Structures are given as structure tokens and as C-alpha cells.
């Protein structure tokens, strides 16, 4: 109950944010935080809950982005039409790639996903239908509201918020379903899970496909907001890395971990880019790298886990103080 109250307060603050901080920069920042939170939450299903560290999720992100822009560029349709198409493509790709790749464990899985992503980037860069190295553009001038091309970031903010809520809702539902229990068992020990009869391969594949579909929605939204996609912005390995880092910084395998990570890293990147200008691009990723190394070294569970631990400690000391237990000498 108390948890629900806290959630309502947080949601109210998130809804009010773009009205309280109403400069275009602040609204755009808010929209980007939510967008990356969607992508990182989608990654979290497979990387956090199932413990399969995918470094190739950008393939699905690119699927969505290219489907949305392709719907406009080739068929003059609203980019929105591309969203279901992108979901379909990425779920099919996830199924085809997932079957052999998910058999690999640990590092091998991560390396295979990197290779898949780089392969996809190279192939798209050499495919004229997908705009090769130049990429595809969306409508330059919105024809109607269904083009979802707005000058202000405000409509995007609420659109992304709605999708983020849906994504987190699906994740929450999944963790409390049979699949969620299987995933947790697999993450702890795949062999033990299998020996107790959990269908490990099938469960991992379902999680991978679900995660792929949601990631592609994030890609489509990204392309709509920026109005174009090219191999670097749609399929660059750094996008995979960002999803992974945001989830891990906040807390991989925790529902709100990715959102917390995005809320820290996106402003860091945007502010350092705007303060440092072109020089900042490199420096931003130096800081990113340093943060990941420090997280991996000192707090692999992420920030939320640290907070939970501190809260638990605090409660314990409160309780002992209330009971009047003597402090340790």
C-alpha cells in the first residue's frame, strides 16, 4: 500500500515535469530520458531478468527505426504504420537468431550478439533499399497528426511516457507470471533450472522475442522524433552499449533500474554535449566508460540495489533502537 502511494507520487511528478521545466531543452531532455528508459527496460527483460547479456540489441532498435522510416520513404505511409511491421520483423529475427545464439552461455552469447549487430550494420550500409550509408528520412513537413512529427518535444514526452508505462507493465506482469519464475531460476543456475523441469531454452527464447519487440518500438519512436535513421544512429554498437549501461547503472533485473539509469546518464550526456560542444562527444563516452568500470568493480547490482540495501540497514537500526537494544560497544 505504501509502495503504491510512493508510485503515485512519482508518477505525478513525472507527468508534471515538462510543465514545471518548460524550456525546449528541458522538455527534450525529459523525452529522451523516457525514450532511453523504454529501450533499456526492454533490454532488461533479457539482460537483467534472464541474465543473458545481449550487446546486440541495437539490431531490434534498428528494425523498428528502419521500419518506421521505410513506411514513409517507400510507401508514403505514416511512420506509425511501421511500428507493428518493425515489431514483427524484430520478433522474427529474434526467433531465428535466438535459437542458435541462446544456446551459448555467458561471454559466448555476448560475443555472438555483437557479431550479429555488426553484421546487420554492415549489410544495411551496403543495401540501397535501406538508404545505404545515407539512411532514410521521415516526412520533412508533417502532412497530418498521424505522421507524429512535432516541433515541440511535449507530445513526444507524453507519448513516450505512455509507452514506458506499457513496457514496465508488461515487464511487471512477466516477472509475476510463470515465465518470470522460470527466468529467475535460469539466471541463478541454468543447469539446476533444467534439472527441475523448467523449459530453459523455450523460456529464454520467449523473453528474447518479447524484449526484441519492445526494443523495436523504442527504435521506431527514436526515428520519428529525430526524423531520420542511418546505420550509425540506428545500428551503431554504442546504442546497444547505452541500453546495457543504463540498465546496469540503475539496477539490472529490477523493474525501475533502467529508468533510474536513464535519468542519470541521459542528462549527463546531453549536458556535457551542449557544454563541451563537438569536443564533448568523446569525453562523454570516457565518462560512460569510467562509470561502467566503477559500477562493475564496486556495485555490480546497480544504484537501486545499493539504495535498497541502505534502506534495509536503516530500518534495521531503527527497529533495534525502538526495541531499546544496546548499541554495539
Amino acid at each position, binding site marked *: 500500500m505504501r509502495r503504491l502511494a510512493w508510485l503515485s507520487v512519482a508518477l505525478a511528478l513525472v507527468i508534471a515535469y515538462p510543465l514545471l521545466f518548460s524550456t525546449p531543452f528541458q522538455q527534450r531532455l525529459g523525452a529522451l530520458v523516457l525514450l532511453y528508459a523504454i529501450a533499456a527496460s526492454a533490454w532488461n527483460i533479457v*539482460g537483467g531478468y534472464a*541474465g543473458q547479456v545481449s550487446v546486440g540489441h541495437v539490431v531490434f532498435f534498428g528494425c523498428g527505426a528502419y521500419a518506421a522510416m521505410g513506411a514513409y520513404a517507400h510507401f508514403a505511409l505514416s511512420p506509425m504504420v511501421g511500428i507493428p511491421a518493425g515489431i514483427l520483423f524484430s520478433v522474427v529475427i529474434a526467433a531465428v537468431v535466438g535459437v542458435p545464439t541462446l544456446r551459448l552461455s555467458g561471454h559466448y552469447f555476448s560475443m555472438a550478439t555483437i557479431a550479429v549487430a555488426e*553484421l546487420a550494420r554492415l549489410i544495411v550500409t551496403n543495401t540501397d533499399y535501406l538508404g545505404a550509408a545515407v539512411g532514410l528520412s521521415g516526412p520533412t513537413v508533417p502532412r497530418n497528426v498521424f505522421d507524429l512529427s512535432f516541433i515541440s518535444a511535449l507530445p513526444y514526452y507524453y507519448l513516450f511516457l505512455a509507452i514506458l508505462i506499457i513496457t514496465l507493465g508488461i515487464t511487471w506482469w512477466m516477472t509475476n507470471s510463470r515465465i518470470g519464475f522460470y527466468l529467475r531460476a535460469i539466471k541463478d543456475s541454468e543447469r539446476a533450472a533444467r534439472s527441475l523441469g523448467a523449459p530453459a531454452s523455450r523460456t529464454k527464447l520467449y523473453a528474447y522475442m518479447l524484449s526484441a519487440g519492445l526494443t523495436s518500438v523504442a527504435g521506431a519512436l527514436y526515428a520519428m522524433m529525430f526524423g531520420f535513421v542511418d546505420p550509425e544512429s540506428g545500428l551503431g554498437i554504442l546504442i546497444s552499449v547505452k541500453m546495457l549501461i543504463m540498465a546496469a547503472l540503475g539496477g539490472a533485473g529490477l523493474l525501475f533500474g533502467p529508468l533510474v539509469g536513464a535519468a542519470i546518464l541521459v542528462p549527463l550526456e546531453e549536458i556535457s554535449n551542449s557544454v563541451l560542444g563537438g569536443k564533448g562527444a568523446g569525453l562523454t563516452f570516457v565518462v560512460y566508460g569510467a562509470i561502467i568500470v566503477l559500477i562493475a568493480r564496486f556495485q555490480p547490482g546497480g544504484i537501486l540495489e545499493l539504495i535498497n540495501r541502505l534502506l534495509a540497514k536503516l530500518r534495521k537500526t531503527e527497529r533495534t533502537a525502538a526495541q531499546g537494544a544496546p548499541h554495539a560497544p
Partner: protein
Amino acid sequence: MSFVIVQVIVGGLLLGAVYALFSSGLTLVWGMMNVVNFAHGDFVMLGMYVAYLVYSLLGAGPLIGAPLAMLVLATLGVVVYFSLIRDIMKGPMLAQILGTFGLALLLRYSVFWWFGANFLTLPENVVGGTLDLFGIRIQAARLLAGIVALVVTLGLHLLLTRTSLGSKMLAVAEDSTAAQLMGIRPDSMQAVAWAIAAGATGLAGALIATFFYIVPTVGETLAIVAFVTVSLGGFGSVPGALVAGLLIGVIESLSGYLIGAIYQDIVVYSLFLGFLWFRPQGLMGKS
């Protein structure tokens, strides 16, 4: 025509020897500690930049640049081992992947920030021009790099199999608790492995810097080359890495020559996936 093919194959073998050199570093650490260094390609990239700095500041070629790069990177390897790897080795899988991946970003973008994204090259005459051997034209720089890499890789194999240091490292790889009971310190042996692995990448980087483009993101491609080599040669095997490295050098050169340079990476990546999917124990591993 046939001469051109032979020339392409020889070029591929020479480049492949360098691939084998830096991949044997990856395979050593992997086989010994079951840690995959995702920053391995960026270590090679650092070796290239050390060679570049030596040239641009001192005007010296690989004769000074290569040993210096080896030394700098070996030191870095030890520092990375003690400050990062030793701790994340005990942590969860996510921490291991994140740790070395973060290191990769840190190194890559520090160089990017300092040197910019421009393609740098060393002048072509830094190792002499082009040699003509029985009608096959080979750049002297490539010949030097290939031969040095081959010799050092073989030397590394001998070091691991024929010396007491090698036996100690093997003992730690087999069972570090048992090794500790025999009076071997796993910590020092693992640090030595990191020094050797990183030193090999530094040397390899300085060697290919004489004829390769130097750019901060080159490590990404080279890391995948190293992953392919190691997965092809079997995880933990230096002779496997040597054979696989030579093979990949040839495949890459031939596919670049026969179907076009833009498809050469596609061929290598597809090969990697094919191996991971269908034969994860490598070419020479037991099934």
C-alpha cells in the same frame, strides 16, 4: 593472374601472423582465468598510438616503437589486472562483461578525445619500401610485421609449454587452490598472464601501425578478429590461435580481392557466427 593470387595469399598470411599474435594474448587470459577481455582490440589500438607517438615525437620507427609499445601495454595489463580484473573475476557474469566493456569505452574515447577521429598513418617509408621476391611484391613493413609476429607467437608457445613459468601458469589455470598449496601464487601468475597478453597486443599494434590506418575505433574491428581467431582455434590454445590467425588473414585477403573490400568484414563476421553456432569448440578442439 596467378601471381596476383599468390601475392594476395602471402599478404594474408603476413597479416594473419599479426592477428595470431594479439589473439594468443586473448586466448591465454581466456583459457587461464575464463575472463574475456572485451577491451582486447583497444589494447592493440593503444599499441598503434604508442608507435605513432614514438614516430611523431622522436622520429623513430618500429625498432624503438615496438618494444616500447610492448612495455607500455604490459604495464597497463598488470595495472588493469590488479585494479579491475582481480575483483570482477569473482563477481557475476554481468560485472565481468561490463567491466572490460567499460574499459574498452574508456580507452577508445580517451584516445578519441585526445587525438580526434582522424585517420592517421605512418609514412610508407618508415620500414623501407617494397621488396620483390620471385616476382611477388611485398611491402617491407608487412614482411617485417609478419615475421616478427610469427616468431614471437611461437616463442610464446614455447614459453608456456617448455619453461617453469609456463608450467606454473598452467597449474594455476588447472586448479588455482592446488597450485597455491604447491607454493605458486595464483595472483602473481595471473598478473604475469595479463602482462604477456597485453604486451603481445602492444607489439602487434606497433607492428601493424606501420601499414594500417590508425584510428580510435579500429579496436572494435580488431576485437572481433581476435574473437573469431580464438573461437576458430579453440579457447585457450596458442597453436590453435596461430593456425586460425593465418587462416583468417588469408580468408580476409582472398575475399577482399575476389568479392570486394567492403564484403571482407561481412565474410569474417559470418564465419565467426557460423563457428559459434555450429562448432563452438573450435577447429582443433575435441567435440
